[in-house]
């Protein structure tokens, strides 16, 4: 492995004791400028095995931009990101092999059926034949998509489309999951389903998901980072934040003071 050695030492020696580099995200001093506007300024954090990190912040705070830099879709103006010890800029293909990603608005190819879409994702991940079929079958079941597997995605409702894109992200059982607003636009039942899926997978993955629904953070996160105007303003556990007042109050207090410099995306 050519993982950066300094990453290993800081990992908790839990379930993955001997090979701590297997479950990791590290972000170091990420900066992104769009023209003269700073969307993300100096964001650094690490996510360790078993952690579910809630990425919180008002709209336009830089959540999506940060996630896009971690996945390598956007190139940072400066700073670096690692997935499983692979530098996203230098070894993008290796890094992404270990990554499952649900982009904002859960895009998918509308002209394909759910099953065709997942077959495409499986082939892109290098699965073929029996193994691919088995994984697709399991994932369909897990995401409660079996009943619509033969329907074109464009004919499905928002909740199904969201889960179809979600299915693509977990199909290859990646150690690292990045989910950009996985429950956005879903009805309460669908939100419940997605939250349960995240909680189920939390034990043996690193999960980062963004949201602006605060009770979601309390329900499933082991850790919360609040980002405002491109900067990390809090990095703590939901319980710890709770001590300073209701999560609502803390969020408002932390993000309105810095909001003067922030703007809509």
């Amino acid at each position: 492995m050519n993982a950066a050695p300094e990453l290993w030492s800081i990992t908790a020696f839990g379930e993955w004791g001997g090979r701590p580099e297997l479950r990791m995200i590290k972000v170091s001093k990420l900066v992104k400028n769009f023209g003269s506007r700073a969307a993300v300024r100096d964001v650094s954090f690490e996510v360790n095995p078993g952690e579910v990190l809630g990425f919180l912040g008002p709209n336009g705070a830089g959540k999506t931009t940060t996630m896009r830099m971690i996945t390598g879709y956007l190139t940072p103006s400066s700073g670096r990101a690692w997935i499983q010890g692979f530098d996203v800029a230098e070894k993008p293909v290796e890094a992404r092999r270990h990554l499952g990603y649900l982009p904002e608005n859960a895009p998918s190819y509308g002209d394909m059926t759910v099953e065709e879409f997942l077959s495409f994702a499986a082939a892109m991940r290098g699965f073929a034949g029996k193994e691919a079929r088995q994984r697709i079958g399991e994932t369909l079941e897990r995401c409660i998509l079996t009943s619509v597997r033969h329907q074109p995605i464009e004919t499905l409702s928002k909740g199904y489309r969201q889960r179809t894109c979600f299915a693509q992200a977990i199909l290859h059982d990646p150690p690292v999951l990045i989910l950009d607003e996985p429950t956005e636009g879903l009805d309460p039942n669908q939100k419940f389903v997605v939250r349960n899926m995240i909680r189920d997978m939390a034990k043996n993955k690193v999960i980062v998901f963004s949201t602006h629904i605060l009770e979601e953070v309390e329900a499933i996160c082991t850790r919360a980072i609040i980002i405002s105007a491109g900067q990390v303003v809090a990095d703590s556990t939901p319980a710890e934040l709770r001590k300073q007042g209701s999560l609502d109050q803390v969020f408002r207090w932390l993000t309105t003071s810095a909001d003067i410099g922030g703007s809509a995306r």
Partner: protein
Amino acid sequence: MSSPVCTILKREWKAYFNSPVAYVFIVIFLALAGFFTFNVSRFYEAGQASLDRFFFWHPWIYLILVPAVAMRLWAEERRTGTLELLLTFPVTTAQAIAGKFLAAWLFVLLALALTFPVVATAFYLGSPDPGPIITGYIGSALLAGAYLAVGSLTSALTRNQVISFIIAAVIGLFLLLAGFPPVTDFLYQVAPAWVVETVAGFSFSAHFEQMQRGVLDLRDILYFASAMAFMLLATHVTLDNRRTK
């Protein structure tokens, strides 16, 4: 074996046939090719067993139809947000470009192959020299590839398919007319000869004409190959720029 290039190629190929684009393109292509060859160029009346009159129209038909095939390549993915999905799979940008381009090219080649009745007609009525027919088809295939590569670039430049179509058609028109005798004759009157010849050297026309005559020159093949490579490389740079801004 399923490399990412193959996987993307198959998906794109299916996407053409999942929408009316494929059928509309093939029908219009064949109808136009037939109309120009038989009605405008008077293939029967000319009494010559050669396909000159058939290949002559290809650059003009491609000029309008090929940008329509290429315009969705990247613009559509950007509009629907799937580009983010595609480029965060474990593939390189080059693999994605290759897969998409090859799918579009194979699709146009399918339409080109379906013109075989014209060849059959020529052989039924006379005994044409097969050499120029073979090189004509090779030239036409390369020409279509070059147009497509232009379309790939313009599609990467914008999320609006109409704009992509128009810019691709205008660049195609320029590359066609730069070596078109009526245009070059005019240019000789207003510009120094070396300027006109340099510009004409970039044109599709002369290279394709050679092949219609049955001359398979390595330089012409290299010309089309490098035109495609350049446009696809520019597509790569454009897609990378979007990420850096």
